[in-house]
């Protein structure tokens, strides 16, 4: 792709949400702004598809000099952002409309919500495309700020609390990430000119020459910093609060995509650090944090009372699994991790949407008060089950495939302790997660209710995701295989496929 064309492509990609945000601000009509956002999200999806197809054929695209750099790894993240973005936008229409009808929010807040939504998409789109690691950091920080605004949309006690914790913890965490980034930069300035020392491509290029000790310290900062953002334990503490208190479509975005952005950043630095000091150091750190994450998530789910909070813990678990895949390494592990990113980005929003619809119907998020979903809302209930089974890694759903690869990689890498622990934790998670899920889905409702699936627009995004969950479990299209394979190669072969 020639550079002008690339510039235009990237510019359009970023301009779409900006334009949409501006339009939303100007129009301010409840119904129209939803549609505007849906349009912009679908436009983004189309553009991303286009970009991804280019990536598949050309491997990399750079734009604006070296400022933006898209390779297969970024493409995987972009794909997840755009898909989840679109389904969230679709779901928002119905969900926020219903919240409005229930007098949960007023017109002003709906406008604010859609503004935030678009800006949030924009910031997330920049993260994986930025080549300059400083810009990446700034946009990750920006995602925090935007999402804090979205979380505290309702101004309820809990959402304010969640927003505060999220803001403080994520900011502190990201300051670590900045330190790490600057350390990397500093290490790089020792061997190259100041001008593009901040660029990832340059850093990878020089990675063999960087100072090992500096890189070690820097990676620790990066891991803790972006790990906070990615929800790795023990920095995950903000996550259950924020994800459960946000409006449901935002929860989907936070869990399905934003966490991936954090991990994406870690992966980028992992590549550099592996080149410099061998992959053992960063892999081991990743594995340790990952095992802790999976373990804590497994243990925490048991006592959950709130549906969305449980899902948030499951996100912690999945982030752990992805890092585990990266940590185990080998083509299988990394491949599994990349696939897991996508699979989780499909299954988790499905669960959030379903839980959103369910809590609207039952007027509560407390799991003890929800019973017999399958009778009241057959379609939602079935999809909720499918999503739940997918999340706990039950075949034939998609997450199983990636987990299978990750665990295979664990065996292959000889990390038997970690793999044994993780398998144990997975079984525990399976048990405790499904215990909650099945109690909700089956049985008889506490109070009699009308059978109702809450409208087509609520169901369509879920069915889309649900069918993806099933199809990707047994069949991965060739293009996607190539893309994910290339992404895995980037990680395994020091940055360039």
């Amino acid at each position, binding site marked *: 792709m020639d550079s002008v064309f690339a510039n235009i492509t990237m510019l359009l990609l970023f301009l779409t949400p900006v334009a949409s945000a501006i339009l939303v601000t100007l129009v301010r009509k409840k119904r129209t702004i939803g549609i505007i956002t849906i349009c912009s999200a679908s436009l983004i999806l189309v553009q991303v598809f286009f970009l991804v197809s280019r990536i598949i054929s050309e491997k990399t695209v750079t734009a604006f000099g070296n400022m933006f750099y898209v390779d297969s790894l970024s493409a995987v993240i972009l794909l997840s952002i755009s898909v989840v973005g679109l389904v969230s936008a679709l779901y928002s229409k119905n969900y926020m409309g219903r919240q409005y009808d229930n007098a949960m929010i007023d017109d002003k807040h709906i406008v604010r919500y859609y503004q935030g939504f678009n800006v949030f998409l924009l910031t997330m789109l920049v993260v994986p495309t930025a080549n300059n690691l400083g810009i990446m950091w700034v946009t990750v920080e920006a995602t925090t700020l935007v999402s804090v605004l979205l979380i505290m949309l309702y101004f309820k006690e809990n959402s304010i609390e969640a927003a*505060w914790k999220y803001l403080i913890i994520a900011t502190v965490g990201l300051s670590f990430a900045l330190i790490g980034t600057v350390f990397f930069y500093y290490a790089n300035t020792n061997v190259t000119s100041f*001008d593009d020392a901040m660029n990832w491509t340059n850093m990878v290029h020089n990675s063999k020459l960087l100072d090992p000790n500096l890189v070690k310290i820097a990676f620790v900062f990066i891991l803790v910093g972006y790990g906070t953002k990615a929800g790795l334990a023990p920095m995950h503490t903000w996550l259950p609060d924020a994800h459960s208190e946000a409006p449901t479509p935002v929860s989907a975005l936070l869990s399905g995509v934003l966490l991936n952005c954090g991990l994406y950043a870690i992966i980028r630095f992992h590549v550099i650090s592996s080149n410099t000091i061998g992959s053992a150091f960063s892999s081991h750190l990743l594995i340790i944090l990952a095992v802790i994450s999976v373990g804590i998530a497994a243990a925490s789910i048991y006592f959950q009372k709130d549906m969305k909070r449980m899902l948030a813990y499951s996100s912690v678990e999945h982030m752990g699994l992805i890092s585990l895949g990266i940590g185990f390494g080998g083509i299988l592990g990394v491949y599994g991790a990349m696939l897991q990113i996508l699979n989780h980005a499909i299954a988790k929003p499905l669960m959030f949407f379903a839980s959103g619809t369910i809590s609207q119907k039952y007027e509560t998020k407390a799991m003890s008060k929800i019973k017999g979903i399958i009778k009241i809302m057959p379609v939602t209930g079935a999809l909720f089950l499918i999503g739940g089974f997918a999340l706990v890694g039950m075949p034939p759903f998609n997450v199983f495939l990636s987990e299978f690869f990750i665990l295979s990689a664990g065996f292959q890498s000889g990390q038997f302790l970690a793999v044994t622990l993780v398998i144990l934790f997975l079984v525990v998670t399976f048990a405790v997660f499904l215990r909650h899920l099945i109690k909700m889905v089956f049985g008889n409702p506490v109070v009699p209710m009308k059978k109702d699936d809450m409208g087509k627009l609520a169901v369509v995004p879920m069915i889309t995701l649900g069918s993806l969950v099933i199809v990707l479990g047994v069949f991965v299209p060739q293009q996607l295989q190539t893309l994910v394979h290339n992404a895995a190669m980037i990680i395994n072969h020091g940055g360039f496929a």
Partner: protein
Amino acid sequence: MESIQLDILTISGSVLLIATFGVVARRGFMDWLNAYRHQSIVLAGVTAIIGYVTGIWEIYIAAVLTLLVKSIAIPKILTYVTRRLDIEFKTETNPYISLRTSIIISALLVALSYFLTQQIPFRSDQVVNVLLPVSMAQFFIGLFVLVNRRTVLSQVVGLLIIENGLFLFTMVLTHGVSLIIEIGILVDILVGIVISSILLFRIGRTFDSLDVTNLANLRDD
């Protein structure tokens, strides 16, 4: 580098640390804000010196911005937001660890920072040698303040100290080359403060208190 510059830098470094300790050692919000303001002014000065030493003109812009944002805008915003708050909201009466112990721990954190940064091989860059541990110490003390304090306001201040440490750190190591990033960071901080002010306001209204221990509805135990 001339030794006089180095001396100035060293002295500024200690001033920065002292200002940081000022936050640790005091109880009142306005005291902290003052300490922060002074720290920011020194920070801007240090930035300017670095600009002078390296001869990169962008750093002056960064220095001016720091002065504007950190020592003027942010204290103004915070004073404005908190002007109507009762005095008991503005004082840290009951930190987890007493002030005296806090000071000792902060001192230990300074030592830790020196210990940790020793390993890093630097080019014979005196600026880095002098200021890197300071910035790290600031960072850790800020974090400690966050961990230790119970009121929302002191957490905001802790955050500000961290940001200052971060700014110094970035400045020292990058010499402000990527101005865009510096500005991005500054904007992020500014927006962050604005948002936390909104939140602060909301917390005060919703919870009738600025004690973060009240913000504990969302938990598992």
